[in-house]
């Protein structure tokens, strides 16, 4: 019990330690930065929640950024005709439809999810562009202030916390949550036990679509506008949330709560990058650091078993050396 409390405290101490480190290093970074840090962490956190079900089934999805933008565009179109209800339904339908198409293409064409997600990323960007072009001949899609005020800071925190609670309830208290974990751990074993892994993956994509729709709401409400981009630019929205999810999944051993760990992971990322900006580090160098950090996070989270095994062997050798007299 004591060990568990120490582990939990350790997990929660990481963002605080980073925050105070950058506060000491930079004059411009301090308690006044907390609203910015929180506000900026919300979109990556919800994107992380949208990526987590897919990543837990061991699939890769780089199209989430394009799906989120498409959901926002559909939501803003529906908001023009049906007001706030249409906005929410539009975001939900826009994100879910693309997630469903992605899942069906993966299932029917039977090619790796990475390839399907790249193709869907490009196609979704084109679809969002055409939709934005059809409604306003502009790359910037806007919604009225009466609508975007409901999802801007600090209400975006409410949306994120609600999404986290829903995610927790689904992943820890429902059959599909357990099946996603089972398929992710060992798909062949799950198939042999009678699990229809293709259905589980389809549901994981749909779950991703649902959380993507919440992110669509937060994204367009952040500033009241969303920029429709092409040329695979929306893939940039994936990297920071992916790092947060990787950190979160690594921290799961210390505290078994995925949404909370993703939030902590995203907060850490947000603190690091805002701290770097406060230190006056250039954009290019930030991108280099982002790449190095991504490699480190992926490398460590992908080799934790090897690292643990090496530590165990070292400990065994140390104990043997202590027991055997020289």
């Amino acid at each position: 019990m004591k060990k568990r409390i120490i582990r939990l405290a350790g997990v929660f101490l990481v963002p605080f330690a980073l925050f105070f480190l950058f506060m000491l290093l930079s004059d411009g970074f301090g308690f006044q930065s907390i609203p910015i840090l929180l506000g900026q962490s919300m979109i990556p956190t919800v994107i992380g929640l949208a990526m987590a079900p897919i990543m837990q089934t061991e699939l890769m999805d780089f199209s989430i950024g394009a799906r989120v933008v498409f959901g926002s565009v559909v939501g803003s179109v529906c908001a023009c005709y049906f007001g706030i209800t249409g906005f929410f339904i539009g975001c939900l339908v826009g994100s879910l439809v693309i997630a469903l198409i992605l899942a069906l293409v993966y299932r029917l064409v039977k090619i790796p999810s990475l390839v399907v997600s790249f193709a869907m990323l490009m196609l979704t960007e084109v679809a969002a562009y055409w939709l934005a072009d059809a409604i306003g001949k502009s790359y910037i899609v806007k919604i009225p202030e009466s609508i975007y005020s409901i999802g801007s800071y600090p209400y975006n925190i409410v949306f994120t916390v609600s999404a986290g609670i829903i995610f927790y309830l689904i992943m820890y208290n429902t059959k599909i949550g357990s099946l996603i974990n089972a398929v992710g751990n060992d798909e062949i074993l799950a198939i042999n036990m009678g699990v229809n892994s293709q259905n589980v993956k389809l549901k994981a994509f749909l779950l991703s679509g649902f959380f993507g729709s919440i992110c669509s709401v937060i994204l367009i409400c952040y500033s009241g506008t969303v920029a429709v981009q092409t040329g695979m630019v929306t893939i940039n929205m994936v990297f920071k949330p992916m790092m947060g999810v990787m950190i979160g999944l690594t921290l799961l051993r210390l505290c078994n709560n995925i949404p909370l760990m993703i939030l902590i992971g995203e907060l850490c990322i947000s603190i690091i990058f805002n701290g770097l900006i406060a230190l006056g580090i250039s954009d290019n160098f930030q991108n280099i650091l982002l790449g190095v950090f991504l490699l480190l996070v992926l490398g460590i989270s992908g080799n934790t078993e090897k690292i643990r095994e090496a530590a165990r062997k070292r400990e065994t050798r140390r104990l043997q050396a202590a027991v055997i007299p020289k």
Partner: protein
Amino acid sequence: MESGMVILQFDNITTQLVKALVFIIAVGISFDRKNVKVIK
């Protein structure tokens, strides 16, 4: 293909659409499904 699309004066959006479709069709045709137990 790139040159052909330039000659046909495709805009960036159409080029991206064609590239995405060609990409998925090419991988769909060439992917070796028989030697893979689980497609990730």
